């Protein structure tokens, strides 16, 4: 679409981006504040970044979150790719409606419900099976369950664009089904799988509510640490942490977009 932008659209764009970015920019600005008071400027300083590096609770929370996010992303990519495959390629199998529902519902399911229901499952499993003990693994299972939905969506839309006759052509030329997957389908959908992996990683790394429900004693993820610290009040260390996080995410998004853009061009 082209043509002149109406003034209304321009002003909404300006206001919208101002709304989206001014809180973040002010947060970054005050992370370099000398003063402990987050909103009073006391001169430039990086001391809160130093303090952050000494904060063992946040650091160990971050490490735990990275591990959980990594495992979650790997599990979710496998499950999500398989699910996308089933939905796109297996036609109308029995139980498809239920399956499709189970795949997409976690996308919108309120986190408190997902968290509560999984915790109740884990408690019941402990009662019946004696495990798994609550902690890192249960968080991974919980995160993988909802992250799978996101991976499925991403991979599904890529698979849907693929010409089905590519697979038939490969098979027609003598490739067995497993080989078709390996040499034709995977090379064509890996960018989508990578995008799904990153999405799953981010979602897991970011999650507070589900982790709080499904975690056990001793397993405190970074968002859980941040949450309890924010509940105590605003702290410049959190500003520093947030700034690091935003810079990392922005860099990754820019790189990913550049790569995607160049591939298309």
């Amino acid at each position: 679409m082209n043509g002149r932008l109406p003034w209304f659209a321009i002003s909404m764009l300006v206001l919208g981006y101002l709304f989206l970015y001014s809180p973040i920019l002010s947060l970054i600005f005050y992370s370099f504040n000398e003063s402990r008071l987050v909103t009073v400027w006391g001169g430039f300083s990086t001391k809160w970044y130093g303090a952050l590096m000494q904060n063992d609770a946040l650091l160990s929370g971050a490490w735990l979150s990275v591990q959980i996010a990594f495992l979650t992303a790997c599990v979710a990519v496998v499950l999500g790719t398989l699910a996308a495959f089933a939905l796109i390629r297996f036609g109308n199998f029995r139980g498809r409606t239920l399956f499709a529902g189970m795949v997409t519902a976690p996308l919108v399911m309120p986190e408190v419900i997902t968290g509560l229901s999984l915790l109740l499952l884990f408690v019941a499993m402990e009662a019946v099976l004696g495990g798994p003990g609550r902690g890192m693994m249960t968080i991974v299972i919980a995160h993988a369950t909802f992250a799978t939905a996101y991976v499925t969506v991403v991979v599904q839309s890529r698979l849907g664009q693929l010409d089905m006759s590519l697979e038939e052509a490969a098979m027609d030329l003598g490739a067995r089904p497993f080989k078709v997957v390996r040499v034709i389908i995977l090379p064509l959908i890996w960018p989508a799988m990578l995008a799904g992996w990153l999405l799953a990683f981010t979602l897991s790394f970011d999650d507070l509510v589900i982790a709080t429900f499904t975690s056990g004693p001793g397993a405190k993820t970074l968002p859980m640490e941040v949450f309890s610290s924010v509940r105590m009040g605003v702290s410049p260390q959190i500003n520093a942490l947030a700034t690091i996080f935003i810079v990392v995410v922005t860099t990754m998004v820019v790189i990913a977009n550049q790569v995607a853009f160049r591939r298309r061009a």
Partner: protein
Amino acid sequence: MAVGSGGLQDKPWTDPKAQPFIRIEGVSKHFGDVAAVNGVDLNIYRGEFFALLGASGCGKTTLLRMLAGFETPSAGKIFIDGVDMADIPPYRRPVNMMFQSYALFPHMTVGQNVAFGLQQDGVGKAEIAERVAEMLDLVQIRALAKRKPDQLSGGQRQRVALARALVKRPKLVLLDEPLGALDRKLREQTQFELVNIQEKLGMTFVIVTHDQEEAMTMASRVCVMNAGMVEQVGAPAEVYEYPNSRFVADFIGTANLFDGVVTEVSSDQTRVASPDLGGDIVIGGGGAVAKGATVRVMVRPEKIQVMPDGSPDPGFNSAEGIVREIAYLGDVSVYHVELMSGKRVQFTRANLLHTADAPLTWDDRVRFQWHPANGILLVI
């Protein structure tokens, strides 16, 4: 203009002792409640260029996909070279297919695409290189071997797809609308090329097309399909000149149809009283129908001649009408003439003179005629 039957002067389908290469026996395919293919029996012989012709949704592609092994018949059997294909998956069939979308692997170069099938068979590297080069030469795209599919034109992609389907020297090559994506000029050129390649390699080709001209040009035999069933199988000229049903008559070429009732049957001719024409129609040959039967007579437009002086030759069928429409096609013109009965008749005339001098124009009254041998009797 059938150029395709060159390698098959002996016409094996006329020889009752000849062994068919492909036997399709009572094959049906249902998708839910819909019968895409319904009780098809076909024999296809070695070295044939066999065309499955029909409108979209007639089941021709489904039949082709069953030959390739992508669909399993709901009923019936398919034999290729005497082997029952029921339990043989696509990757073990001696069959290669050229897809309508070409289905070129976008992440591989032209050379890799063509080599793919040979790699699956574990052919040695040196041999693969040699056979790929040979095949790319055959379809005249060797210079493009290093390119990716998205750097090719439509015509070039079509050649890659063809090379990929031929390189394994399959017993049977299936082509699904292979020329559908090309523009008209290129399509006509490629039709002859395909036939030449097929004759050179001596493989059996089965092609699916909705374009009757394409089928007529290339095929040794044409199978006209409608609603999942075979309407007629025969050499192009046979199907055109002697259609066995109204559907085939209409689908292949243009047909003038006159309804009527048989009034007289003798050993050498049949007489039909046709209110459509406003008189009797005589058809050469007889015996096929009984007196009193309701029939339809088919006459091709190019078989009808205009009598400028208004008096028909003795023994010819004739009628009079008014020219209502003229379509000028360059080489020929098509005339629509309205009869007394309101029925419209189409005929063509070669434009021997410049059109400015054309003797026939709108609202002219004309008398036309055709020889009894050129009328075909269709039973309703």
